[in-house]
Structure formats: structure tokens, C-alpha cells
């Protein structure tokens, strides 16, 4: 990721008639920021804590560049003196040719080349270059720390923010989207800070410095060189624009290709089951061919930028040679000056291209920063009340009073819900999908805020309780199991901070997980892989149940948890659960009527409202929705006979 870009940009500061930067133009379409100035300011704010180091870097960069720039001019002095010495020597030899022929060369005073002077110049040069190197090194060395620390701070702020955002935020976005901001966008900023910022400084200083140096040698030649500048811009503008279109197309095809690959590989079983391998390959080849057609064009167009730059640079070179030669013959400049000019015009190309590049890079970096700031500006969860209460010994009496709630204001979900749950009771929530059952959980745990009414535990409104304490009172076993990349032990121990080995194993036994854990090669130290795919769905459920058992909460919430566990194991768990549920209020959401039968209260929900309430027998007697649901489980067989 970052390393790639590092490598691309750093090398190539020296130019010969052939030099040039790597094709950073081949980056593709650049995202534009909406509020450039504002975001830039905010981004620079993050650099504030490091401002001293940053200023040092600035200073070092400038000086380093200056010393490099004066180099060619000074070496020009040496060469000029060299040439003067040569000319004098040959002239003298020519004048005294007769003497030389006569073998009396020793009698003639032939001037020699002024080597002492040249030596001094060279020593001066060496000194300058050494200092420049030192500064250059220090600059990047310090910048490393500055850039990375700044990025570390941004990451930390984002993580902090994420922990304060309501669930609403996360449910509305894909994980990929959020992740992309925290990783890709932050990385972009990191790379830019590390490389591009100092490059910008050195490039600008170089350009200005070189122009000044060139002016001191010959204004006419400087003019000539500057006239080649528009050519560079022309090339860039023409070519870069054309390539954007192809890059955009390329991105599209890559997206299509990746999507197809992902689908086919994850659904491989189905592809095989229905014998569609051949079709899948055909489809792939089609997309691949389309990708090839735009890909090579994009590559070609971005690839000719460098040769074109080189050509323009060569034109400049030729012009310098010709015009310089002419001026030298006129005696207006020395040969040493020509040499210096050649070196300068070579050094000129590089920073110009870099600066053009950097414009693009800064655009995309500020766009990245904008996306991150968008996130940092999101609305947070309501903070805990000032004098939030803590219930010392919670009993587990839950009351809903006239509660209204909806995810979207136009689609009311829960209407005027009133329930009164006593300590130790089991409440079963039943109903078709989308009836509002999971929503109840969201409200109890205060993952979402209710619209109207109030929910209270032991008489205290849950909004007056510290969120952390509120959630400590609940134990949750969810429909989709969440286990992280760690050992089985750590995963179960997640339920209670500072759990001992004995406690963990006890919970595992109670959840009937202990046995299968022992059959695994590493037992409790088995590391669950990323998707926790090295254990079965049912085993995952058992682990989450063990985790909840360990937490030993006042109120238990079971959300369709045991439907992936076979009914036999479910029996054992239920027995363990029943023991746990003694004196513990429990909310059970399930499809299985067998689970709900023993509940003290059954809430039958449909389309957001509670349509029936009561225990199993009462509801059966009512002969309503619940009775209907219940009977269909067992009259299915009877229905068969009727149909046939």
C-alpha cells in the first residue's frame, strides 16, 4: 500500500537527458474535495502539535535544496578556469611554435592551468554537497516521525468517534464503506505527508532557485528555456485528460470482474450443483476481454507521458547547446556557463513535473481528509445524563409505558406498547419476521432511542441510567453469533472482565460446549480464525451461550439463539438456562413454540404492535393469531391429507 507509492516517488531527482519521474500520472481519476480550503485548514491543524518539528523540516528542506542548486554554477567556475588555462596554454604554444620545434620549449614560459584554484573550488563544492546531504537526510528523518504521529492521532480520533456513534449510523452503512475511510483514506494522508509535502517544498524552491541561477548566467538563455515550459503543460494536459477516461472505464471493469469472481467463488457449491461452471467461465472471459481493451489503452496513454517529457526535455537541451554555443562564440558566456546551463535545464524538468503531479495528489488527499472529517462530524449518541444512576442490586422488573418507536419516521413500527414484567419472569416474544421483535431488544439495550413513552427497570427510566451499567444488567445471545479472532477461552471470557479459568469452564459446561471444546486439538486454546469457520454454526452458538452464562446478568435476552442448535442439545441448554433463569427476568425471541411454552407471559407481535398477550393456555383458548401459529406446526400433516 503505502510502500508502493513511497518507491514510486522518491527516486529520480537527478536528470540526464533521459531522466524523469515515474508515471505517477498513472494513478487514475482524482477525487475532488468539496470544501478545499476548509478541509485543508482542518488537516493542517492536525500538524499543529508537531509544528516545531515541521518547521525544522521546512527549513532543512529549503537549505538542502539551495546548496544543491548552487552546485552547478560553482562547478562552472572550475570549468571556466580550466578552459582559460587551456586556451592560454595553446595560444602560448602556438605563438612559440618555432621555439618548440627547435626544442627550446623549456626556455619559454608556458602558462599552466590554474589547478590550485580549481582544487579550492572543488573542495568548496564537496563541502556544500555534504551539508546538503546532511540536511536532506535530517529533513526526511524528522518528517517520518511527524507524518506518522499525525496519522496516528487522526486514527485515534476516528476510533474514539466510532465508539460514540449510535447504532443507527452503523446500520445505515456497509462495513466496507466505514473501513475504507479509516484505512484507505488515512493511508492516503500518511503517504502524502511523508513524501509529497516535502517534495512540494523542494520542488518549488528548486524551480525558483534554478531560474535565479540561470538568470545570473544569461537572461537570454533563461528565456529560451522557459519557453519550453508551455510544451510540458501541453503534453500533460492533452495526454493526462485522455487517460482519465480510460482509467475510469478500467476501474468499472475491474469492479465488475471482482464482483463476478467473488460471487462465483463464494457460491461455488451452487455453481457446481447446477453444473454452471462453463457459463461462469464464459462470463468471466467476456469481462476480462473488456478489461483488456480499456486496460492497455489506459496503460499506453499514461506510458507515453514520460517519453514525451523526455522529448521536450531534449528539445530544451538542444536549444541550450545551440544558443549557448552561439553566445559562447560571441564571447558573451563561457563554456563553463554552458555546462552549468545544461545541468540546470536537466534539473529543471524534474521539479516541474513533480509539482504538476503534486497538485493532483493534494487534491485526492484533501478529498480523503474530507471523508474522514465527515465521519468525525457525525451526530453522536446522547451522552449519559449528568447524574446518571446506578441500580445497586437490580431485581429485573421491566416496564414499558406507552412506548412509540420507528426506524424511519414515515414507517411507524412500535405503537403504544405497554408491558409490565415482574422479577424472574420469562417473557416470550413471538411473531412473523419483521414484526418488531429484534427492535424490542434494540430499545431495551438503548441501542436506539425511543420516540415517546418510557422504559424503566426497577422503576428507574433507562435514560437515567449510565449506558454501561444498563448494559451490564443484560445478558445477550444474538441470532448471528459474534466471535473474534482469539482463543475460545478469550471469547467466552469476554462475558466477564477478569474471569477465572474455573469460571470459564463452568460456563462452558453449563452450555454443553465443554465436550466439543475438549475434542478440538488445542482445546480451550484453539484460536478461532477470522470468520470463525473452524467450528460449526451450532458450536458457535454454544460458545455465545457460555459467554452469556458467564456474564450472569440480571436480565437475559435470547434472540432466536438456539435455532441452529439441534433440538436435542437445545434440551440440555434449556435445562441449564431454566436453572439460570430462576429469579432472573428473561426475554426470549424464537420461532420455536416448544421454547416458548413455559413462559409466564407471551407477547404476540405482528407489524409492530402487540396483538395478543397472555400465557400459552390462555392464548390457545383465545383461538386467535397465536393459536393459529401453534396449530399449524402440528396440523401440517393433517393439511397434507386434505390437499391430496
Amino acid at each position: 500500500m503505502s510502500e508502493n507509492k513511497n518507491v514510486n516517488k522518491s527516486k529520480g531527482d537527478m536528470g540526464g537527458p533521459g531522466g524523469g519521474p515515474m508515471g505517477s500520472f498513472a494513478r487514475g481519476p482524482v477525487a475532488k474535495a468539496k470544501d478545499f480550503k476548509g478541509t485543508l485548514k482542518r488537516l493542517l491543524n492536525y500538524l499543529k502539535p508537531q509544528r516545531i518539528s515541521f518547521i525544522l523540516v521546512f527549513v532543512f528542506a529549503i537549505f538542502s535544496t539551495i546548496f544543491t542548486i548552487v552546485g552547478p554554477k560553482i562547478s562552472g567556475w572550475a570549468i571556466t578556469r580550466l578552459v582559460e588555462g587551456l586556451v592560454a596554454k595553446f595560444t602560448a604554444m602556438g605563438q612559440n611554435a618555432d621555439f618548440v620545434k627547435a626544442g627550446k620549449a623549456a626556455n619559454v614560459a608556458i602558462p599552466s592551468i590554474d589547478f590550485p584554484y580549481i582544487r579550492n573550488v572543488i573542495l568548496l563544492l564537496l563541502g556544500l554537497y555534504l551539508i546538503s546531504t546532511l540536511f536532506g537526510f535530517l529533513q526526511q528523518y524528522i518528517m517520518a516521525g511527524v507524518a506518522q504521529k499525525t496519522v496516528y492521532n487522526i486514527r485515534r480520533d476516528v476510533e474514539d468517534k466510532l465508539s460514540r456513534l449510535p447504532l443507527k449510523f452503523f446500520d445505515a452503512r456497509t462495513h466496507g464503506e466505514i473501513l475504507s475511510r479509516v484505512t484507505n483514506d488515512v493511508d492516503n494522508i500518511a503517504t502524502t505527508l511523508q513524501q509529497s509535502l516535502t517534495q512540494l517544498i523542494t520542488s518549488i524552491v528548486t524551480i525558483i532557485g534554478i531560474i535565479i541561477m540561470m538568470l545570473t548566467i544569461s537572461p537570454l538563455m533563461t528565456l529560451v528555456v522557459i519557453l519550453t515550459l508551455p510544451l510540458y503543460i501541453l503534453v500533460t494536459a492533452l495526454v493526462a485528460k485522455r487517460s482519465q477516461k480510460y482509467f475510469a472505464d478500467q476501474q468499472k471493469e475491474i469492479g465488475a470482474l471482482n464482483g463476478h469472481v467473488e460471487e462465483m467463488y463464494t457460491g461455488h457449491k451452487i455453481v457446481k450443483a447446477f453444473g454452471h461452471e462453463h457459463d461462469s467461465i464464459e462470463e468471466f472471459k467476456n469481462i476480462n476481454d473488456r478489461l483488456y481493451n480499456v486496460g492497455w489503452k489506459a496503460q499506453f496513454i499514461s506510458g507515453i507521458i514520460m517519453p514525451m517529457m523526455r522529448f521536450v526535455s531534449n528539445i530544451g537541451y538542444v536549444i541550450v547547446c545551440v544558443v549557448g554555443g552561439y553566445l559562447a562564440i560571441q564571447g558573451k558566456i563561457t563554456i563553463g556557463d554552458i555546462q552549468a546551463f545544461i545541468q540546470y535545464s536537466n534539473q529543471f524538468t524534474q521539479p516541474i513535473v513533480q509539482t504538476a503531479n503534486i497538485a493532483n495528489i493534494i487534491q485526492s488527499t484533501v478529498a480523503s481528509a474530507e471523508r474522514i472529517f465527515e465521519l468525525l462530524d457525525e451526530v453522536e449518541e446522547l451522552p449519559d445524563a449528568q447524574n446518571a444512576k446506578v441500580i445497586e442490586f437490580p431485581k429485573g422488573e421491566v416496564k414499558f409505558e406507552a412506548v412509540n418507536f420507528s426506524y424511519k419516521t414515515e414507517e411507524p413500527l412500535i405503537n403504544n406498547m405497554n408491558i409490565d414484567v415482574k422479577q424472574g419472569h420469562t417473557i416470550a416474544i413471538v411473531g412473523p419476521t419483521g414484526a418488531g421483535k429484534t427492535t424490542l431488544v434494540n430499545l431495551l439495550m438503548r441501542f436506539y432511542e425511543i420516540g415517546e413513552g418510557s422504559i424503566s427497570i426497577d422503576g428507574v427510566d433507562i435514560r437515567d441510567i449510565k449506558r454501561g451499567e444498563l448494559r451490564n444488567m443484560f445478558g445477550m445471545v444474538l441470532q448471528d453469533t459474534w466471535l473474534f479472532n482469539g482463543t475460545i477461552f478469550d471469547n467466552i471470557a469476554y462475558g466477564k472482565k477478569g474471569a477465572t479459568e474455573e469460571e470459564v469452564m463452568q460456563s462452558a459446561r453449563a452450555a454443553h460446549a465443554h465436550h466439543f471444546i475438549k475434542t478440538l486439538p488445542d482445546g480451550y486454546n484453539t484460536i478461532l480464525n477470522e470468520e470463525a469457520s473452524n467450528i460449526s454454526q451450532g458450536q458457535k452458538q454454544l460458545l455465545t451461550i457460555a459467554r452469556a452464562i458467564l456474564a450472569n446478568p440480571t436480565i437475559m435476552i435470547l434472540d432466536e439463539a438456539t435455532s441452529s442448535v439441534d433440538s436435542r442439545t437445545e434440551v440440555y441448554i434449556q435445562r441449564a438456562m431454566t436453572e439460570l433463569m430462576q429469579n432472573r427476568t428473561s426475554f426470549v425471541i424464537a420461532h420455536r413454540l416448544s421454547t416458548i411454552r413455559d413462559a409466564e407471559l407471551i407477547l404476540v407481535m405482528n407489524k409492530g404492535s402487540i396483538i395478543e398477550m397472555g400465557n400459552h393456555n390462555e392464548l390457545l383458548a383465545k383461538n386467535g393469531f397465536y393459536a393459529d401459529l401453534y396449530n399449524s406446526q402440528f396440523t401440517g400433516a393433517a393439511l397434507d391429507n386434505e390437499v391430496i
Partner: protein
Amino acid sequence: MFKLFRFLKEYTLQIVVIVLLIFTQVLANLYLPTLMADIINKGIVQKDVIQTISFLGFTGSYQGVDYILRTGAIMLLISAGGAICSIISTFFSSRTAVGFGRIIRNKLFTKVEGFSLHEFDKIGTATLITRTTNDVTQIQAVTVMIFSIMLFAPLTGLGGIFMALREDAPLTWIFAIIIPLLGIIIGLTLKSAMPLFKLMQVKIDKLNLVLREGLTGIRVIRAFNRIDTEKVRFDAASTDLMDNAIKVNKIMAFLMPIMMLIMNVTTVAIIWFGGIRIDEGKMQIGSLIAFIQYGMQILFGFLMLSMVFIMIPRAQASAIRINEVLDMDSEMLDPQNTILADKESGYVEFKNVSFSYPGADHAAINNITFSAKPGEITAIIGGTGSGKSTLVNLIPRFYDTTTGSVLVDGVDVKEMSQENLRAKIGFVPQKTVLFSGTIADNIKYGKDNATIEEIQHAANVAQATDFINGMTEGYEHVIAQGGTNVSGGQKQRLSIARALVRKPEIYIFDDSFSALDFKTDAKLRAALKSETAKATVLIIAQRVATVMDADRIIVLDEGCIAGMGTHKELLTNCKVYHEIVSSQLSEEELA
């Protein structure tokens, strides 16, 4: 990496042309300083001497400014020639490199599609995806670099040395010292930086992992009040990454300035020693200036080369991963002579079948024997991990048995062509998979040339018609990737319709009714009963109600058959079955 280059065979001609063109380019570039030297030596210093120019059959004699102008014109021509060469070579190299990528992708995808589930388990789906996408892109990028730099740079370097020798041989000895020095410094720096680069990737992955888990498990984290724990985890990974990045960048900070110093010192050395040689009359001033430029080109050439060496290890890693896939042969192949099982229809038989996942200690299923005939419903029930899905996966030959044999229509499945075998089966998996496309497309997946009536009929039986008609586009409703815009129950019904439209001899339903509520489940099974009356049906289920009226119920317990028979028989004979049933029905209902 070079193993992969065998795929470039068809581009051999282009590659030769590219090399030639780049060579010409380099020559052109290298000739320019020589001409410049001429301008200085002959045009300026000896401006009063008449010089001759001969170029491409054109000769003339000029002196002073005229000479300079003519030489300048030649230089322009050569530059233009070089530019044209480079444009053409870029054209060919783009097509070659991108074409290379295309070839590898095709080969990879074709290979993977031919894999059995076993290979997928071995390598892992996620990494297969990465290998087919990211890794190929890496290889392609490096190939582009190879064509642009790796051919250009060394040729420039060597060519530069050659030209330098031509100008003045003894002076070239400077390079004999400088170049190795350069090499050592680059080598040492990279040696210490490379391991850190690799670590960077690891640390970035770790950070991503922590983040991703924080997102997927946000409810659990908040419910268990572990926000601080997660923050600590994140901070640890973030600090780790920062430290590593700082280290890497500090080492790289060293590289550039030293490079520049070496280059500049070379220039200085050339001036000094060149000056001495000029004094001795062995060299001319113009040549000295040309020498300085050759020096720059040589060093620059070697520098660019070192850059490529940084990219190659990374590409190498990708190449290894790709080759691993390409070299893997699917263990499940069709035999040379396949037998067409067309004598019977819908007979499934298991003979002493055992199966263990590779590397596992215990067998997943042990010594299973049973047979199923058309018109019969065979249900399989049992605890989690008892081997139910494993068992039915053997029928379409997703895996091969370890011992024993599975016969379909009297023929061992290993002796049939896989295509032929799977055409007989309609498979509905436990985890529903739908593909992006319309609802009609998805149902048609079971039978390519299904008519609208057949599709609608299948949807009807699967109890899907209601919700399909409830959608604005009906059958043309587009399903997003991963089937995220339909509910779990709807997905399952579509999955069932897909199998139904096929009208196969054998149906396999692997716990396919779990997301349906009781009412729909019951109606569905009723409709299925008449639809599948003539076929052989195998159902894996958890609910006793689903299983109750099967012709044969197989009870699995830890991979072995704990009981086989009808519902009534098993209630009395099989303890395991009794337990399962009693957990779902009350005492009275049992009787």
C-alpha cells in the same frame, strides 16, 4: 515469477520488437551528449576551423555558428527518432503487459472453477478471491515496470559506460569505484528495510482485522460493555503500526540523500581528474562535459534498476500464490470412461460409507448404509455436527467417500461424469446462495431454457408467488449481490424454486425450511409432496413436524446411524429419536 512468463510465449515477437526499440531509444539518448561535445569542441573552441558533418548520407563542411546550427538540427532529428521509437515500444509493451494479466486471470479462473469443494476448503475462499484479483494486478504492474525500466535502465547504464570509454578510457575508472559503492549502499539499506516492509503489511492487516471485528460485533461489544477493551486493542495495533512505519521511513530517509551525494561527488571527481587529463593533452573540454552527462545517465540507470528490485519481491510473493493455485490439480476428476447411468431413475444407495475430512481424527460419518427409491421421502435428523450435511454432500459428489461407495441409479458416482450426475439432482443447500440478477434469472439457474410457465409453476410450489407479485417488477426484480434485498425466508423459497424448475430425479433439501414460519413451512411441504411425488426426496431437518411423515427416517448421532425406520417405529425403538421428539412436542401430542 519467471515460471509465469511461460504464458508470454505468444507475445515473443512483440517482446523482441520492444527490446530492439528500447535499444534504439537508448542509443539515441546516448548519442546526444557526444554531439554536444562536438558542438563545444569543434564549434566553439575550434570555431575558426572548418569541420565536416556527415549524417545519413548527407555531407557538408561548416564552421563556427553554421556548424553548431547543423549539429543542433541533427540532434533534434535524433531526439524525434528516439521519441517515436519509445511511443511504438510503449504501444507494444502496454498490450503485452495487460495481455499477460488477461491470460493469467483466465487461466486462474478456469482452474478454480474446476476445483472441487475440497480444494476450496484447503486454500480458502477469501484467499482464492484475492489471488485472482489483487495478486494478478500486482504481477501486471511489475511486468509494466519491467518493460519500461528494467530494459531501459541497464541498457542506459551499460551504453553510458561504453560511450564514456569511447570519450576517454582511463577516466572511466571512476565508475569502477562509484558503481560498486552505490550497489553496496543500496543493498545494505534495502536489506535492513525489506523485512520491515513485509512487517508493515502484517501490521496493516492486523489493524484492519481489529477494525472489522469492531464493526461486525458492535452490538456484542456494546452489550458487554467492552468499548474500552476494544479501544485498547485498537490502540495497540495502531501504535505498533506507527512505530514500524517510522522505522521504515527513517531508514529510507537515508537512501536518497546519499544517492545524490554520490552523484554529485562523481561530477566533482570527473572535473578534477578530467582536468588533469585535459592538461596532459589527452582529452578535450567538450568531452569532459559529455563525460559528466554520461556519468549522470549511468548512475541514474543503476538507480532505477534498484527500484525495480524493490518491487520484485512483492510481485514474487504474488507469483508464488498464483502458481500454487495453478499447480493444484483437483483430486476429483471424471474417470477416463464414464458410465451413463440411464437404466434406472432416482435410486440412491449408500454402501458402508465412511468419510473423514482430510486431517481430521474422527470420521464425520461412519459406516452408513441405506437406500432410497423414487416416490419415497427419506428424512435425516440428528444433533449438531452429527454428519447430516456431510452425508448428503456425498451424493452430488462434492466430496469423495473415504471408504464405501455411493451409488446413484445403480452406478458408483465416481464412475459417472460429474455433469451427468448433477443433472439428476436438485440441490437446496442449508445456506442460501443467490446470484446478482433478476428473480427469473435465479430460478432459471436450475434449468437454462425454462419457459415462463415453468418458472412460475416452480415459484408457485415454493410458495414464492405471493411475495414476487408483491414486488413492483415482479419476476424482473433485481437481486443485489449476496441477495441482501430479500429476506431470509424469501431467499430460501427462491432457492427451492430453483431446484424445482429442474424437475430432477433426486431432490436434496438440506434444512431448507428453517427460515420459514410454521404456516408457510406446512403449505410448502404440502405442495412439494405432490410436485415431487415421482422423485426421490431426501430431507435434512430439525423440526419433527417436517420429518414425521417421511417414508424413512434416518437418525444420525455422532456420524453413525442411531436408528432407521418410520416415525412410529423410531418412537419406540430409538432413544435418540425419542429425546429429539419429546423436546418439540408435549406429552399428549406424542401419543
